[in-house]
């Protein structure tokens, strides 16, 4: 048990994310958005590929937002672990529900 640090109450050293890093994150997100719109508008003939690509790019964006904007990269590991639990939970529910619908017919 380490001594409690009442000065921040965070229990660990706070990492301040620079303006520059936030700006780069923003640019990365915009580029991903441009990509996904381009794939959808100009690659409409590659139908199944487009849906999967769109979802993959969306997940990429979500990870970038969670890691940098939501500070998960520098925060306590417990927050990241908790988020994983929720994601896995959702994937399990989704897989079971989809399997149910596909098998019943």
């Amino acid at each position, binding site marked *: 048990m380490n001594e409690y640090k009442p000065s921040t109450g965070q*229990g660990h050293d706070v990492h301040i994310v620079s303006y520059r890093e936030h700006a780069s*994150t923003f640019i990365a997100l915009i580029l991903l958005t441009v990509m996904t719109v381009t794939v*959808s*508008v100009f690659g409409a003939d590659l139908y199944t590929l*487009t849906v999967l690509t*769109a979802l993959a790019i969306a997940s990429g964006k979500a990870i970038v937002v*969670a890691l940098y904007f939501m500070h998960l990269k520098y925060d306590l590991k417990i*927050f990241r672990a908790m988020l994983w639990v929720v994601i896995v939970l959702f994937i399990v*529910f989704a897989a079971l*529900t989809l399997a149910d619908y596909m098998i019943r017919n």
Partner: protein
Amino acid sequence: MNMDTTFVLPNSGHNRDDMSSKMGMWLFLFTELLLFGGLFLVYMIYRFMYHEDFLEASLELNVWMGTINTVVLLTSSMTVAMSITAMQKGNSQLSLRLIWVTIFAAGIFLVIKFFEWSAKFEHGLFPGMEHYGHLANGERLFYFLYFFMTGLHALHVIIGGIFLLYVIRAIQKQKIRKDKYMLLENSGLYWHLVDLIWIYLFPLFYLIN
């Protein structure tokens, strides 16, 4: 066991626990994620069952309005993240300004959403309207989910905006300071969640055609 460990009472002038406060916010965000997750699951199933109708209905949505709104939300996400950086560095004036920019962006998002919805209303596509009744089953489901999910999301944008207004007041009253900014950080987390949900809503509704 080390019995010499000294325990500093948490309430030695600092009777708060920032880490727990943030964890509470995350737990709340998880319930929000599962709320929208359930809706996405409904979307997935119906999209699987009414494949063609969903594509047909999706053509009606305006990709460019959706794209502009995506950029608006991403920008607001950046400004609120930067306002936390500013507060951590002790620049509360800059922090305030950045939050105002975020709220302004929320306003733009809602105005664009308003015009989008109005166009759909004019075409009678809202559930219960004339034209909606004549649509194929799958198209009706698409519009129902579209209005419900973007509506619920817009409600979150409004709540997030109110939360940020409250944070602005707290900064002005010096209740949020360089060494005490958890409320600001939590409002930021909420705002990013709103952005996260839109990141998935946008391709699934606007980009599937």
